[in-house]
């Protein structure tokens, strides 16, 4: 079955057969693919963990594409994530990876013809290029065709996140080919003028686009190799200088305010660990993971763990912590669970929704239910049905109304939740799940459940 993520590229396409992903190389791209392999660039990039490794396989092609050059079986990426789900540092690392690949490609007489952020994925904690067909022969004097795409996919969102608002990364969800530069220019503060290099790549670039739109210009512009390398080096310097320090007043304090005693916290960790031991390794999603304290328990048990949180600071913190500790089994991502990533692009199929990327073997939903049920007015039946769609096993914490955090949520609003009780919770969840175990968390009023989908 041909996958809809790659239909735009005439060089080849992705297809799946027997749950294995393959990439067909079309005859039109044959010479370029052979150059990638024979030039030594493929080996160099794979050794440096910058490009996904593949093996060539002897497999009949897809029925509707009988003509082919090669069929490749790339190494699998456990979870496909998208730029609008990445924190600042993930997008920055993806940008630097793209520029590093372009520099190496030029050394081997090739160049990147795409610099889409969607071509980068995180594997074992590091970003790497997954589109093996992104290279073409470099011809001296030719410009870098992917320059505009790099500015839209990376430079625009990164600069908006740093200089305007971290939440503007979400513009990538609306603009599938990167944030338009005229929009970026209008959103960036005037102080961008103090950063001339960035100003040129965004503001002057946008002005140039507007000026030349629909105008007749010379078809050929000579771009020397030295100039091109200088420009890539300049982009690297700009991206390296972009730093997001987080807004400590707005985000950070919340995470220090827990109502757990150290005894309760240790008891909860032990219980979650025991429940995880009973499930066995697989794909685990931690919903509302904060900075990944409990997700790490899953990762330590060899679960491929994806952490979701709505807070950019928490995701950033989790990512940096995982990198620092070398915890490669954790992928922190930004997600509003009440409005999760939809399918976007042509036919709503180019980038898949969260649900389509599941189900996970295990979902952790710890200290989450009250936020969904009380802050977001979601009935238990809806929460249970949604969780049933995305997992086989569920480790979920029930937080009663008597808990101080719930009291706090109810302090500023009318209590319209008569069914928010432990009995009501169990009754609704039993419609989708079997409760396999439950245990109270010591020194708290909370209860932890292990459930299995019926």
């Amino acid at each position, binding site marked *: 079955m041909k996958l809809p993520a790659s239909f735009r590229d005439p060089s080849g396409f992705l297809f799946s057969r027997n749950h294995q992903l393959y990439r067909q190389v079309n005859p039109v791209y044959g010479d370029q693919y052979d150059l990638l392999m024979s030039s030594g660039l493929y080996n160099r990039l794979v050794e440096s963990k910058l490009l996904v490794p593949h093996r060539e396989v002897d497999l009949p092609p897809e029925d509707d594409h009988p003509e082919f050059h090669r069929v490749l079986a790339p190494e699998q990426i456990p979870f496909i994530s998208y730029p609008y789900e990445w924190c600042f540092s993930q997008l920055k690392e993806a940008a630097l990876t793209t520029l590093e690949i372009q520099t190496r490609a030029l050394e081997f007489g090739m160049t990147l013809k795409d610099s889409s952020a969607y071509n980068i994925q995180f594997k074992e904690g590091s970003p790497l290029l997954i589109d093996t067909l992104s290279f073409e022969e470099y011809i001296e004097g030719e410009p870098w065709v992917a320059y505009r795409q790099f500015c839209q996919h990376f430079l625009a969102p990164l600069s908006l996140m740093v200089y305007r608002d971290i939440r503007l990364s979400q513009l990538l969800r609306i603009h599938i080919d990167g944030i338009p530069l005229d929009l970026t220019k209008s959103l960036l503060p005037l102080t961008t003028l103090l950063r001339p290099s960035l100003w040129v790549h965004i503001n002057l670039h946008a002005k140039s686009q*507007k000026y030349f739109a629909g105008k007749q210009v010379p078809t050929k512009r000579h771009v020397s190799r030295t100039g091109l390398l200088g420009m890539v080096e300049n982009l690297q310097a700009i991206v390296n200088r972009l730093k997001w320090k987080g807004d400590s007043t707005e985000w950070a304090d919340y995470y220090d305010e827990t109502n757990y005693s150290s005894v309760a916290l240790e008891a909860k960790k032990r219980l979650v660990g025991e429940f995880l031991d009973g499930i066995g390794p697989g794909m685990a999603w931690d919903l509302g993971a904060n900075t990944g304290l409990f997700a790490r328990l899953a990762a330590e048990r060899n679960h491929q763990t994806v952490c979701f949180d709505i807070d950019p600071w928490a995701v950033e913190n989790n990512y940096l912590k995982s990198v620092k500790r070398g915890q490669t089994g954790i992928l922190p991502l930004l997600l509003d669970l009440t409005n999760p990533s939809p399918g976007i692009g042509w036919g709503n199929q180019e980038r898949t929704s969260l649900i389509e990327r599941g189900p996970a073997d295990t979902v952790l939903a710890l200290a989450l239910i009250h936020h969904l049920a009380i802050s977001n007015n979601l009935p238990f039946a809806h929460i249970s049905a949604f969780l049933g769609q995305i997992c086989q096993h569920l480790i979920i914490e029930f937080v009663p109304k008597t808990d101080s955090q719930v009291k706090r949520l109810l302090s500023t609003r009318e209590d319209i939740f008569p069914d928010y009780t432990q009995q009501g919770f169990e009754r609704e969840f039993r419609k989708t799940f079997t409760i396999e175990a439950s245990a109270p968390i010591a020194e708290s009023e909370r209860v932890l459940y292990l459930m299995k989908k019926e």
Partner: protein
Amino acid sequence: MKAWKAATKLLLLLALAFVLWPPTVYAYLDPGSGSLMIQAMLAALFAVSMAIKVYWRKIKLLIAALFSSGSETKDP
């Protein structure tokens, strides 16, 4: 450094003028032509800057070499 910055700014302005008023008209391109033009301008700037850097390094090396050989003769 001030002189270098001023020179860069001047070059930038000249290059901008070059971009905004292209000398020859050849063909119609897509709306991405603005990106191509800015890239051509930037690459030209960086090529010049790289060349200056290389020559400047050579000049510095030459001066250093002259200086060190001079000091050797003074202090046998």
